[in-house]
Each structure stands twice: as C-alpha cells, then as structure tokens.
C-alpha cells in the first residue's frame, strides 16, 4: 500500500561530484517497496506549493529507504540542504517495478543515476530462492566519466560482477554501456544460455537495450524517466508512447516491457 510518510533523515552524504545518498527512516514506505518503484518527494526547502520530485528506490531495507540522486535543478539542489534529523515527506511506493524473478542470467544495464533502481533489483534477485537456474546478476554501467559510475562498492558487496564503460575512457571500456553488454550477449548466445535485460538510464540507452531485447527475443524490462506532476496517474503529464497508445509512466510504468514501447 502506498503511503504518504513523514520520514526522518538518517544520513545524507556526498557520493561523488553532484551525487548524494539520502537515507530515510520510512518504515511504511520501505515495507512494501519493490525494485523499480519510485517515491514522490516533497522537498522541504522549496515553497510549500512546489511540486514533488520523483526518485527511484535505490534500496529499502529494515525500515530504511535509500535514494541516490543527482543535483540537476531547483528541486534537487534544494534537497541538498536537508540535514540528518530533519523530516522529508515521501509518497510511495509508486508505479510498476521490475519482476523479481529472472530466467537465466539477469543483465542489468544502467546509465548515470539510472543505476539507482538496479541495486535494489540486484539485491532482490539474489534473495529470490526458488528460481530454476539462479544466476548472479551482471551489471553493465555507463557514465560520462569515472565519477558518474555510482554505487560500485555496493554492487561489489553483493558479489555482482560489474562491466563499466565511460565516454572518456577514464574507467572501464571507452564508450557506452552497450559495448561490454554486446560482448556478454554474444557469449551467452554462443552458449545457448537464457538471460533477461533490465535497464534504467537516459532514453538513448533505453532504446538501445530495448532493440536488443526485441531482436534477440529475450525479455527486456525498461524503466522510463518522464517528467511527473502527480505521480499517481491523475494528471496525464508523464506520457510514454506505447504500441497501444499513450501510457502514464507513473502508474503504467515506470518499468515497461521492451516490446510495449513505441519511441
């Protein structure tokens, strides 16, 4: 059940230039959170009538809710000023998330802050006990430069193998995350192994991953980022085109199946 919860800030720390980790004590929202879902946050320092800002659930564990975000504008810069002990209002969990099961190897593909929902997903996939062929997820992570590759330590702690790519070549492969992804896809197909694709990031990445999922006939789970107002399906601001017409990213998504999307 979605709740509008007054959550106390436990921790708010830098994680690279422009990025912050916000940890909230939000037992009600955290209890029902699933990977790929998001929360709609009221930013305390903005005027009381300001719209909320949507953020993926980076992690939900033991009543804590973690958000990994990048300061890009008025709201996110204002959010930077929130201190431990202060209260933030969070509405969630919202939207349709990723499936928590996978046939074969889960291939997670993230770009920039799009890595956020993939960590929670990786954790849950590893916890799901009774899969036919349980496989450790692999992460393909892209960013402009080394410092845009977030949460590498957290994935390492889960035992997830990370294939990094940076546009400037400062870490991992030079280029986009699909470069190491394509190499892995070729390996898996040569071995006749099953896999599913899970992705979140900029539209260019989402398109590239969707195309691969559709052309290879593998399930592709695509998390789309659209400007939102209400976050609950009431305003029709957050439209994503699909093969069956306009869908609302906040309730019909943010996670869509690759073959549903019309770009």
């Amino acid at each position: 059940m979605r709740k509008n919860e007054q959550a106390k800030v436990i921790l708010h720390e830098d994680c690279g230039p422009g990025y912050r980790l916000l940890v909230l004590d939000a037992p009600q929202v955290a209890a029902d959170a699933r990977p790929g879902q998001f929360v709609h946050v009221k930013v305390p320092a903005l005027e009381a009538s300001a719209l909320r800002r949507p953020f993926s659930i980076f992690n939900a564990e033991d009543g804590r809710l973690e958000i990994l975000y990048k300061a890009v504008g008025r709201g996110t810069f204002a959010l930077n000023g929130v201190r431990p002990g202060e209260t933030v209002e969070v509405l969630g969990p919202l939207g349709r998330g990723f499936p928590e099961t996978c046939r074969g190897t889960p291939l997670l593909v993230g770009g920039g802050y799009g890595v956020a929902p993939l960590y929670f997903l990786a954790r849950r996939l590893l916890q799901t006990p009774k899969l036919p062929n349980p496989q450790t997820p692999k992460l393909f992570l892209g960013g402009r430069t080394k410092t845009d590759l977030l949460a590498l330590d957290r994935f390492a702690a889960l035992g997830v193998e990370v294939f990094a790519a940076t546009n400037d070549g400062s870490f991992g492969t030079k280029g986009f995350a699909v470069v190491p992804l394509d190499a892995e896809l070729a390996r898996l197909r040569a071995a006749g192994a099953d896999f599913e694709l899970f992705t979140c990031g900029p539209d260019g990445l989402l398109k590239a991953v969707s195309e691969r999922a559709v052309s290879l006939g593998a399930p592709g789970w695509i998390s789309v980022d659209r400007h939102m107002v209400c976050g609950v399906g009431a305003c029709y601001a957050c439209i994503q085109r699909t093969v069956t017409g306009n869908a609302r990213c906040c309730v019909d998504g943010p996670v869509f199946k690759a073959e549903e999307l019309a770009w």
Partner: protein
Amino acid sequence: MVKMDVNLGGLRMPTPVATASGTFGYGTEYVGLVDYAKLGAVTAKGIRLDPWPGNPMPRHAEVVGGLVNAIGLQGTGVEAFLSKTLPAYRTVSKVPLIANIWGGSVEEYAAVAARLGDRVEAIEMNVSCPNVKAGGHTFGQDPNVLFEVVAAVRKATARPLLVKLAPNVPSIVPYVKACEDAGADALSLINTIPAMVIDIERRVPVLANRTGGLSGRGVHPVAVKLVYDAHRATKLPILAMGGVYEAKDAIELLLAGATAVAVGTATFTDPGVVAAVHDGIVAYCERHGFASVSDLTGNLQG
C-alpha cells in the same frame, strides 16, 4: 455542528469541497491518499465523444506560484468512460460525480451529454480550455457561441448543468448572462489562464505545445475577483476553483460568492489539502458563529 451540505444548482453536495477536473483523474487514482469522506463532489477528467491522445511531451512546467500545463485533454471517450471508468469509480466512492465534457462542435457537446444520461450526478462543460485549438477556446470566447452550445447541452440533459468559464475575458458578465439565458444551473470558475514558459538556455518554449494554462497558488486572487464579479451579476450558484491550498483560500472564494469550492493543483503536492480545507472551513464557521457553510456565500461586509 456546522451544516456543511450545499445545493449547487440541484447537485446535492454533502460538503462544499470538490476536486477540480483534470487534477483528480477519473476519481480512483487518489484512493487511500485523499479522505473521500470530506468531499462533496469529484469532478472527473474531461471527456468527449471519442478518445483523445492529448499533446506531446513535455506537458508541464513548474513556475513559482503554480504550474503551466498543456496536457491537451488526453482522455477516454464517453463509451469507455461509461463502461469502464465510471463503474470503477462507483466501486470505490459514494461521492457524487461531475462529468467534465468538451467537444469540437455544438453537436458533439450535446451528444456527449445525452450519452451520459443520468449515469452521473452533474455535467460540467469545459468551454474554456486554452490548450486545444479545435476545442474549448472558441466556445468560451464569444457569448453568442457560448449561448448556443450551452442551450444545446441543456436540451440534451436533465442533470444539473455547470458551465466552466474562461478567465481571460475583459468582463465575465456577458458570459454569465449567456449561461443564465441558455438554462445553465451553475457556473464553474476559473479554468487555467493562458501562459507560456521559455527555456532561455535553449531559447525554446518549455512545453511541446509552446503555450499552456497556468494553475495553482498564483491564480487564486484572479479567481476571487472573477467569482466576485460573476456572483454580483447572477443568482446562479458558483463552484469556485483556482489556487486553493488551504481553508483560507476556500473561504475567500465562498465570501466572494461561491457556493462550493474545488481543490486542483494543490493535491499534486499534498493529497491532504482536501481534508484540511474541509476541516478549516468547519473551524472557521464555528469560530465566527455560522450555523451553515451557505451563510458564507457572498457574505462580504462592505
């Protein structure tokens, strides 16, 4: 105990607080987040004869004091509304439902109203949407055209009929008269105000539709003025909306002449606004010794 129920042109509202069209989906989206017991009516998102895709993205821009939107009236057609959306609403809510309708022609307005029959508690005509070139704009900008379309819908429905007027007119009075003459039961005021936002770095309009409609906190004094003008010109009851964020805002609109108020954009930020407005009106009536919320309507001293 303050008497909170009101009669809005034949629509019996258990409380004077409604939701504004386009800000509350089809009435089911906020279940569990908004306290429906505090609502006197739910106004559904605009519908026409056939489904309508709306505008391209981006459809909104936040500004200080409000929101500029160009959703473009994306909505279900009347058939899907009757077969799916409305039954879904009835399973979760006993609050009276106002259908908000629009169309590309006088005939279409009348056909939608006729098709709705007595399945909804009231009909609100959107003749003032600034977003759709073929739609609302023209009907709400000419008193003669307005008369024609309201008269046609009047013939098509026996339900309480509200007409939602455009705020961007030199004087609201001729439009109020046209509604009265055409047989409307009530007025809704105000719709969004035409507006535009420009991204100065990219030197392009922020909205894909280039322009949109302003709602939210900043439009509230405009709404108060128009409700005041309209109330002085007519005996028709008024459902007032425009920047209601707290009870004080709603009480201003009631004192200006409204019979009931609607909460719109505020709910996006805080789904608790509906209940806070309701409870704040009760507290105000108690504090000032009003036995009934209707005592507030147009009750300006001087």
